[in-house]
């Protein structure tokens, strides 16, 4: 096919954009209700954030003692989601296991929305969002390689870019009835595998490298991050593919779903094992640094705010492991979905509340300030999740018909089903 002239390109792109908007605007009642609910959360979050910008982060529950809280916890959790969504590429490509391959494109779309949420959580957490450009050379100054946060800024943005390019390229090409460019896609997909591990490792090192915080300063942190991420990312994806299978012509074989559930069981075992190893070391050796772990699991000097969260995370994770490790159980759709929700909730609690807050409680000088997110923080966080889900929903609304061949430039080339991935 000869390359497009600029005018041709613009015309074809406009056709794509018009079609996409038509797709997005069309939908059944459930779809419209879902969008409306997200819209309400987004408006509420935006208002709360505007208020926070005006009055300062004093509207959060964070203070000098616990200087990071719910926002950074959510950020950490979502980096895991972004990483794990793409790690499904490994079985799909390395072992050439086809059933999973159809999901990988959706994994990449999930990664794109998750990274967007990550960046938004960082934005709402910083005191001077108006100075964000200070991080960006040449006008700004990125303290690389000294600051691990500088590394994180780089790898997260690069990872976003890689996934964005791959997903949009494949979909755009499929829309025009053309195969994706192997020379572009295969190297980028292969690059995205180490990068997925990389973003979560760097994010773990962000905390891990602080000698001031014994709760984080443990070499088990990065492996444990990865293990928990390999549970939570696929958990979301399994629910999403079931929804897609139900409401669209999208097809995925049961065995692919069961296989992923099995892999999640192994990851969850590793996660629980690493938590257990850490808890053993802290409690049995009984040094002063046990304070932080004790605050999370048992409470400290009458301060018990986080204890119910700690044990519900442990309980949910154990439940998820038990449900997914038994083949008969994970093949039952009701049980499978209970397992997915348990995994998601367990890892969310363990990262959202259990990582940041105990790391800073008691504070560097031994003071216990009991942090619990304020209404502003909850509203802003809900708003960010709503933006993420909105972006993910709209991307799926366009991507699914394209990969099913229902939405193409020429109606006659409609037998393109699965060209996106199955056609490698």
């Amino acid at each position, binding site marked *: 096919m000869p390359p497009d002239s600029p005018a041709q390109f613009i015309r074809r792109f406009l056709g794509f954009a018009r079609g996409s908007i038509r797709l997005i605007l069309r939908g059944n009642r459930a779809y419209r209700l879902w969008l409306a609910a997200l819209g309400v959360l987004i408006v509420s979050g935006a208002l709360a954030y505007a208020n926070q910008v005006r*009055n*300062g*982060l*004093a509207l*959060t529950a*964070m*203070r*000098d*003692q616990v*200087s*990071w809280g719910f926002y950074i916890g959510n950020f950490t959790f979502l980096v895991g989601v972004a990483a794990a969504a793409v790690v499904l590429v490994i079985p799909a490509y390395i072992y050439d296991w086809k059933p999973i391959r159809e999901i990988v494109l959706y994994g990449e779309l999930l990664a794109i929305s998750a990274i967007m949420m990550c960046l938004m959580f*960082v934005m709402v*957490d*910083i*005191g*001077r969002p108006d*100075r*964000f450009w*200070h*991080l960006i050379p*040449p*006008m*700004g*100054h*990125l*303290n690389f390689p*000294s*600051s*691990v*946060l*500088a590394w994180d*800024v780089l790898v997260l943005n690069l990872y976003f870019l890689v996934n964005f390019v791959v997903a949009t390229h494949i979909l755009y090409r499929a829309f025009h009835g053309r195969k994706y460019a192997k020379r572009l896609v295969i190297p980028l997909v292969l690059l995205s595998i180490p990068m997925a591990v990389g973003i979560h490792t760097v994010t773990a090192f*962000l*905390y891990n*490298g*602080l*000698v*001031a*915080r014994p709760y984080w300063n443990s070499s088990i942190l990065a492996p444990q991050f990865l293990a928990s991420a390999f549970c939570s990312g696929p958990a979301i994806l399994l629910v999403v593919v079931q929804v897609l299978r139900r409401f669209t012509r999208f097809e995925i074989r049961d065995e692919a779903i069961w296989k992923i559930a099995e892999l999640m069981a192994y990851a969850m075992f590793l996660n629980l094992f690493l938590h257990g190893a850490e808890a053993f070391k802290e409690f049995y050796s009984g040094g*002063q640094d046990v*304070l932080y772990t004790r605050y999370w699991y048992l409470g400290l000097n009458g301060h018990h705010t986080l204890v119910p969260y700690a044990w519900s995370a442990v309980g949910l994770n154990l439940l998820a492991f038990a449900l997914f490790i038994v083949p008969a159980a994970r093949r039952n759709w009701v049980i499978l979905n209970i397992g997915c929700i348990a995994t998601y909730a367990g890892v969310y609690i363990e990262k959202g509340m259990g990582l940041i807050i105990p*790391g*800073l409680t*008691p*504070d*560097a*000088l*031994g*003071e216990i300030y009991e942090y619990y997110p304020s209404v502003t923080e909850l509203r802003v966080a809900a708003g960010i999740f709503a933006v993420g889900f909105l972006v993910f929903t709209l991307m799926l609304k366009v991507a699914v018909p394209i990969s099913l061949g229902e939405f193409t430039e020429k109606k006659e080339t409609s037998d393109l089903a699965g060209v996106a991935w199955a056609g490698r």
Partner: protein
Amino acid sequence: MDTDGKTTKPTRRIFASQAAALAAGWVLTACGPKRLYEAPRAQLKKAIEDMERQYRERLGVTVSVSDAPAIPGVEFAYALDLSRCIGCRRCVYACVKENNQSRDPQIQWIKVLSMEKDKGVDFSAADPYYSPAEVPEEGYFYVPVQCQQCRNPPCTKVCPTGATWTEKDGIVVIDYDWCIGCRYCMAACPYGARHFNWAQPEIPKAEINPNTHYLGNRPRPKGVVEKCTFCIQRTRAGRYPACVEICPVGARKFGNLLDKDSEIRYIIENKRVLVLKEELNTAPRFFYFYAT
């Protein structure tokens, strides 16, 4: 270049790329907004004039902002006599006043911890909110903690924008105009020495100290981190920090580590000296000692 006598003719490409590099360099050094860390002298002067004008307009107070650089041959250090401190917290309030710390919400760069004598220096048993009718209390001793001005500071290396650094005289400073308020440095500090402006800092107009330094006590905006600077506005002008001056029992000592005859050197060489959290290898320039 032309060591063997050959003349190299500049190609158009080399010329173009060099011109582009020069132009980019000029843009970066001349017009771009800058960290005060790397601002050339002339630009610093202008930045300081802007600061003074803004303070006049915003606060209605004439604030003078010094740009005194580190004095060659000086490295500051501090020593605090734990056997003398009576926990009166006069240092805390003198510091608040001298360094224009927000009164609402309250920010205090010095935190005095009350500790039980039979437990020793144990942060997990420390009380920062002690309030007996009279100090010192029987059975307790006091450990004031502020920025330890580490030689191996965990806070500066984590800053993603390079907004905090160690000056040549050993003072760890923050560029309040460059800090983005991510608070990574606060997570990294093992001494709780860094404080964040969670809301717009408020100081009654009459209580503003107009003698300031651009890296020290000049009024701060909302959303940035601040900390003790060994009273950089005073010590670079040859004076003692406010906390040293106010201490009613003479527990606080300050001086030049590079001066062999200084009091600080005498204390380090002759007294039983310790640093907080030695095992973290932060190498503080803030020492604690027992004189009696």
